[in-house]
Structures are given as structure tokens and as C-alpha cells.
């Protein structure tokens, strides 16, 4: 076969639309955010409490039949400041940087919850710090993740 003088590449820029069903438990959680509440699920078999709530317990695969409301505060277990540019798959355009997010354990939960932090200087954050959830103003909440604005350092931090 002859030599390759001018390699060719073919461009394709698909644009697709997805519409994800939150389902019974996810709808409950998002509706809770609209009301300014953090809802979790609790397992009757092993007593595990998880947020966001879900059908199947991560500990025992039992059905998590009980919904419980958690206080909107917790402990920051880890965090990062994202500083590099990349395309956001939600929009197809670059996600605004820099931003901070972290893993928060709500008081009374067994797992952690990954979400934005208000603070943008990682030097001012520390593992173990108390944080509290801040919501949009009630009139602006629509039942989506963005109803929860971020966690901010709380008293005792």
C-alpha cells in the first residue's frame, strides 16, 4: 500500500438531547429542595441513612422505605478547587472556572454528598470543618439541584 502523504481526519459534532427521569426517590429529593429541605432514605433492615435518597440500600440491598429529613448542615470531609477548562456536558460550552466543591457528611447521614462550596480559596477550607446548606430564595426554587446553591462554612469552623 502506498505511503501516507496527507493523513485525513473526518469531523463530526453530534448534538444529543437527554431527559433523565429522577424517579420516585429522586423526585422526592428535588421536590424537597424546592421546599428548602434535605430528604434522605433510611433502611429498615440495616438502619443506613443515605442522601440523596434511593430505592436500594448500598449496605444490604434492602428497600429503603422510610424518608427522613436531615438538618441542612454537616461536616466537610474533602474538597477541591477546579481550575482547568473543560466543556460541560450539560451545555456543550466551557464550565465557569474556578469553582470549589466538596464532600459533605450531613448530620445523621452515613454517606457523603458532593456539592459546590461558596468559598473559592482552598487555603481557607479545612477537612473536618462544619458547613451549612444555602438555598435559593424560596420564590426562585423550582425543584432542581440548583435550588441548593452551595455549602458555606458554618459556625464553629
Amino acid at each position, binding site marked *: 500500500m502506498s505511503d501516507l502523504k496527507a493523513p485525513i481526519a*473526518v469531523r*463530526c459534532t*453530534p448534538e*444529543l*438531547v*437527554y*431527559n*433523565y*427521569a*429522577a*424517579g*420516585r*426517590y*429522586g423526585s422526592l429529593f428535588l421536590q424537597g429542595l424546592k421546599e428548602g429541605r434535605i430528604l434522605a432514605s433510611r433502611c429498615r433492615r440495616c438502619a443506613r441513612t443515605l442522601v440523596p435518597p*434511593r*430505592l*436500594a440500600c*448500598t449496605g444490604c*440491598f434492602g428497600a429503603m422505605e422510610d424518608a427522613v429529613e436531615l438538618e441542612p448542615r454537616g461536616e466537610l470531609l474533602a474538597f477541591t478547587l477546579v481550575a482547568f477548562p473543560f466543556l460541560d456536558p450539560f451545555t456543550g460550552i466551557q464550565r465557569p472556572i474556578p469553582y470549589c466543591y466538596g464532600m459533605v457528611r450531613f448530620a445523621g447521614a452515613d454517606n457523603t454528598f458532593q456539592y459546590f462550596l461558596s468559598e473559592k480559596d482552598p487555603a481557607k477550607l479545612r477537612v473536618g470543618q462544619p458547613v451549612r446548606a444555602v438555598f435559593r430564595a424560596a420564590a426562585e426554587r423550582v425543584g432542581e439541584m440548583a435550588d441548593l446553591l452551595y455549602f458555606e462554612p458554618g459556625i464553629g469552623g
Partner: protein
Amino acid sequence: MGERVAIIGAGQTPHRSRRLDVSAPELIDEAVQAALADAGLEPDGIDAIVVGNMEHFEGIHLSDLWAVEGTGGVGKPHLKIATGGTTGSSLAQAAYYLVAGGMFPTVLAVGWERLSDSEGETTTGIVTAFDPIYERPTLAGAVSGLAVMACQYQARTGVRAEEAALVVVQARENAARNPHAHLSKAVTVPEVLASPLLSSPLRYLDMCPTSDGACAVVFTSRPGARRAAWVRGVASRHNHTLLGDVAEGAHDYINTLEQAAADAYGQAGIRDPRREFDVVEMYEPCTWAALEWAESLGLAPRGHAAALWADGTARRDGDLPINPSGGVLCANPIGATGLVRVAEASAQVRAAAGPLQVDGVRTALVTGFGGSFWSEVMILGSEA
């Protein structure tokens, strides 16, 4: 060689156009819980899980990660299988091999799809499964791929559209008894012929729907006293990258099916498939495919499969019932579709098919279709 393998339980969700009441893991969990209950097992009775969908339909690019809470797979050996339309039949084959190999006594196969999550753009998704340079410009998904096959079949045999239409007329009749079916409204031959043209010669009612749904099946080498459907033959034939290589002009379009059937029949000692099978659950994505593929399976002479539907042979009370469930033409959650065939056939063999039960089923034939005209065959029997 290997352990003998039995199916001892299966579960399905209802298959619907949009299951907005459940997230993907919740949808999966419905089928898994039903299969565990049917098999009389607790989650800890499962040694490994194989799970499959076609992730581009949901745009979730680690679908086994997403699904794990629904399957009960956390911390267990867990394998994703995604082979296009054959995903469901590949799941069954993978589960079979894992059990037959002796390393996992009991394996749960789980197939699922939420085609509504991509807002009906199933064809766009399917096009992206094919070569981006040579075939995407022309291909219109499974619809046009199957239309090309139907064109060739029609030219070779002279079979008419009204003969093919009988396949979906009968499928809908069968689906009327099936609570899991997505489409169960009766249709007539004139309605099929008057439905919108999708891709000549295929019309809207010739083609399978797109559904949300899930299915789970339990394979084991240790059925104990439970009613079992034994796996007696397993064969898979995948072929080329380009459809242009597939279509190079064999006497049937999809010679992978003839090859896979010959292999599986040899394993099971089937010599006269038309007489020896008591029921068939065939992956028929369109009416015309059912005709050609019944011939590839040796159920009718070349060019003469339409008679199976015309003379009542394929009816649920006929001599060789084909798709008493209503088949793919009445429910098509893609990653589950092939596994639904296995679930339905195993229920027939286990005499557990309820309102769909065909009398006296001892041997059942199951097929899967997908990819670039790939074929998979599984034979189930009441004895090992």
C-alpha cells in the same frame, strides 16, 4: 464440557413508552426483585452479575456504574455487556459461560434500556454505532439497515407486503395476553399497509417500537428441586464492521443466523427444527426479518416462511408457536430485548408462562439480533 446450566427464574418490568415514575436503577430493581422472587433466592444467592444496555441511548457512559444499585451488584463480580441489539442475548450467553466454566455457581443476567431518556432519537443513537466515515452518511439506523435486507428478500422471493404484515397482526394478538407488552392493540393488514412509510419497503407498523424496560434472568448450576429450563445449545456469530461487507450477496442477507443455528442445533442434537421445537422466541425487529430469519433457522424452506403465519402454524395454538409473548414487535427496551426472549422461552419450558403458556413445551428456540447483522442462538430444554 463445563457444568450443566439451568435457568430457574426470570423477571420483567412492564415495557412502556416512558417510565417517568422510576429512575434507571429503580427500573432495573423492579426486574431484579421479580427474578429473585421467581427463583426463590435472596440477593446473597447471586455469585456474579452481568448487566447490559446500550449506553449511548441514555448518554450515561459507565452504565454498569449507574445500574449497580438496582442490580444489587455492589462488591460482587460484575460485568457489563453491550453488543447493540444482541445485548440481551449476549447477556444470557455470558451468564451461561460464567456458570458453565465452573467459577460462579449462580449468575444473574440483567438487561435494560430507557429509550425515552433520549427523547425518541433512537435512530441517531444507532447511527453512531456505525463507521463514521463510510456508513454514517447514508445509514438511517436499524430501520434502513433492515429495509435494505427486506428489499433483497422481496426481490429474491417475490413475497408481498401483505404477507409480511401478518407477522405483526399475529404479534399484537399474542401481546394482548401479555401484561409486560408495550403494544397490544389489535392491528389489521390494511392498517399495516396504510401506515406511514419509514424506509421502503418498511412501514411504521412493520417496525418494532422503542420502549423503557428491564429484564433479569437467573442462571445456575445448582437448581436443586426448582423447575428448570436447561441450556442445551449456545452459539454466537458476529461478523464485519461494514454493512457493505455483510451484504455481499449470500443467498440470505444475514448468514450469521444460519451459521449460529447450525452450531447450536449441533450441540443440542436438533436435526429437524420445524418438528423438534415446541416454541420459538425470535428477535424480529421488523415483519420482514421474521420471514427471512425463520428460513435461516430452518423452520421453513427458503422463500416460504410467510406460510407459517398465513396457515396458522406460528399462532400460539398452532403447530410451532412463534413469539407467543408478542415479540420485539410489541416491546423493545433494546438492551433487555434479547434477554426478554430468553425469559419468555425459559418460562415456557418451566411451565411458568401464565397466560402466555403454550401446552407441552419441552424444547424452545431463542434468537438475538443486532450489530452489523449479528446473530445469537440459545436452545432451552426441560431436560439437561
